[in-house]
């Protein structure tokens, strides 16, 4: 249990406490996870966050890491959505971490959306919840918002079909409530809400309502369709209450529990129980303020060593105070590492 979780997520940083707790967490994983210990056999405790053993995000696609220790009760497996490789990351969840992660995400989301409870509309199907011992990234991201939900409606009958909306149920929900929370993967939000066959009576009922749209998953597909962020935000909130907002949050299944909503000034803030560093991809040296490979760290993961992950994303640490008023460290998400074609003659 991190003592830092008792603080406001964007309070002044307590880096000494963070490092001390990270040492404890790292030692726990080195003692309980054979693969992690094999990768980092010579690590010695340090005060420098950058020196702590990390795992490349791609390793979770090949190995289901597991840390065995007293008190760790493993539960379900969290799977990322299919990427271009067609292989999902697998994160083994445990009871203790799930509780910490829920506490973390609630505090972060509340900082951006307020603590008021309101109906949550998820642009997915309820069937996606019933996938046995596995949880998809889409569902996990939606459930991050559960603490703020008075009720949950899974809008789609078929998660793969943006036109399978249960519009009658949405209409009833809208008629009874002035405020709604709507979550979807970025592309799903666009295709389901803006492009689908939403009946005119639902569109009429939504007018003047306060809706907070939350989306994650990235812009790649929308960029292909030449949809810009400004157009996306403006289209979604057209005709709604002026307090309606669109919040884009960045997160990875390999960092479940810590999401990075985009603040009003355009940055991602790091809660006190997490940290981020940026590395030169060629040397792995830490970059203070230039673009590099983003590494995300948190104190929430006890069942497997996904607490310290080198991502395949490019970011930049932003010095100084943010105009949005949040304290602590922040970064700018620049994009994914560009992919280049592999040529050869064998099947790799």
């Amino acid at each position, binding site marked *: 249990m991190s003592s830092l979780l008792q603080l406001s997520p964007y309070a002044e940083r307590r880096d000494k406490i963070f490092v001390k707790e990270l040492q404890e967490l790292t030692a726990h994983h080195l003692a309980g996870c054979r693969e992690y210990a094999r990768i980092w056999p010579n690590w010695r405790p340090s005060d420098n966050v950058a020196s702590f053993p990390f795992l490349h995000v791609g390793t979770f696609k090949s*190995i289901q890491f597991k840390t065995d220790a007293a008190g760790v009760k493993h539960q379900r497996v969290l799977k990322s959505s299919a990427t271009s490789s067609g292989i999902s990351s697998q994160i083994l969840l445990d009871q203790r971490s799930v509780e910490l992660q829920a506490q973390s995400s609630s505090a972060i989301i509340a900082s951006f959306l307020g603590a008021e409870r309101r109906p949550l509309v998820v642009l997915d199907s309820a069937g996606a919840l019933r996938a046995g011992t596995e949880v998809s990234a889409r569902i996990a991201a939606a459930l991050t918002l559960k603490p703020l939900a008075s009720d949950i409606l899974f809008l789609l009958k078929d998660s793969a079909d943006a036109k399978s909306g249960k519009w009658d149920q949405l209409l009833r929900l809208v008629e009874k409530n002035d405020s709604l929370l709507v979550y979807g993967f970025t592309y799903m939000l666009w295709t389901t809400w803006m492009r689908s066959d939403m009946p005119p009576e639902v569109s009429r009922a939504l007018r003047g309502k306060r809706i907070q749209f939350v989306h994650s998953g990235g812009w790649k597909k929308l960029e292909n369709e030449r949809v810009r962020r400004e157009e996306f935000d403006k289209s979604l909130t057209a005709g709604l209450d002026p307090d309606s907002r669109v919040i884009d949050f960045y997160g990875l299944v390999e960092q479940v529990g810590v999401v990075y909503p985009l603040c009003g000034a355009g940055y991602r803030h790091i809660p006190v129980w997490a940290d981020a560093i940026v590395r030169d991809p060629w040397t792995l040296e830490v970059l203070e303020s230039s673009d590099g490979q983003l590494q995300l760290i948190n104190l929430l993961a006890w069942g497997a060593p996904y607490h310290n992950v080198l991502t395949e994303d490019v970011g930049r640490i932003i010095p100084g105070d943010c105009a949005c008023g949040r304290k602590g460290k922040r970064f700018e998400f620049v994009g994914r590492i560009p992919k280049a074609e592999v040529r050869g003659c*064998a099947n790799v």
Partner: protein
Amino acid sequence: MCEHMIKFRGHHGVVVVALAFDLTEMLESWSHLRAAMLKSVPDAFSRDEWAYLVAFLDPANLRKPFQQSFGEQEETADCPALLAAPRGPIGLWLPNNVSLLGPLMLILVSLTGSKLRMKAGSRSLDLAGEFLEYARAHAPRGALRDYLSACAVHEVFGHEDPRTAEMAKQSSVRIVFGSDEAAAAIHYLPHPIDSVAITFSDRRSEAWIELERCNEAVLRDLIKVFAIYGQAGCTSPSRVILLDADQTTAMRIRDQIVELWPSVIRRRPAMNVVSDNVRAWQLARAAGWNSVLVSENKAVVSIGGYDLQTFPSLMEMRIIPTHKAEARAHLPENSQTIGHALSNSADPAWLRLFSGSNIARFVPLNTMHHLETVWDGQDFWAQLFRVVRVQA
């Protein structure tokens, strides 16, 4: 109509090869194009790829297919024993990630004069199409340009496209690069009963190096050969077998490779490649390999044994110290090339060792990638010709 009858003397006696073009003119045209290629590298090609194509177009190299299949060219009045004529239209299927094999096959097929229809993968840039366009634009007027304009076609379409079946139906020779499944699907399509199927499917190669040959020059060759395609090339050493080395010696050699690497491969890899190398390094270590990253994360060099799990990676060189018999026992079913650095590679014991294995080539380490007409266990270029027995 084949107007040019060229005589060769080989192990069958005199062979007359009937061609529809003047071979000397065709070779000169390729030489002319080669000279133009020296001036600049088109964007689609890496410098290494372009340099390899230039080397491949050496006139002496282009004569080799005739020499190897039919013998030495000779003006003779002796009666021929065989008449060889091109079989006819050739269909060439290229997969998505294929590198130079497309352009190389175009060059080799041009030497037969047969019509060539190339089908490239629909998901990636294809070098065969790029090279065909370049060659059409830069070839001198004459046999080569006529061939490229009238007889060579490059198309991009998916597996389900009806043109796939059309190609199979119309080809006298089907040349397929790709997975076993893709090749089987193509050969299953209706095709002429007397047509020939040539398949180059997924294969794996190894470098076998004896400890006493582990000098700097050999290690530099090894790095060069590996770094071109990493684990993505069927002729690239997916494993480096260090013969008669123990773990300690292997570690010393690994460290030497790691130290040499930056001076052999100077270019900085793309960001996605170096990131993937960090991933590969961690996965290898997690599986029990003793792995290290090369400076600037250019590659991963790992030492381990046959029992250790491997994970897909592009630039991880896997070294296994072992002895001959064990290395032979662990040769994969789909072996392609063994690139050797041995104290006596001519020792008949090596051939005895490999008899009964599936290896297709046993060649010096630094020639592992050199495409020849004997490939994957067959003299495929000779099969582009129909042979008639002649007796006076």
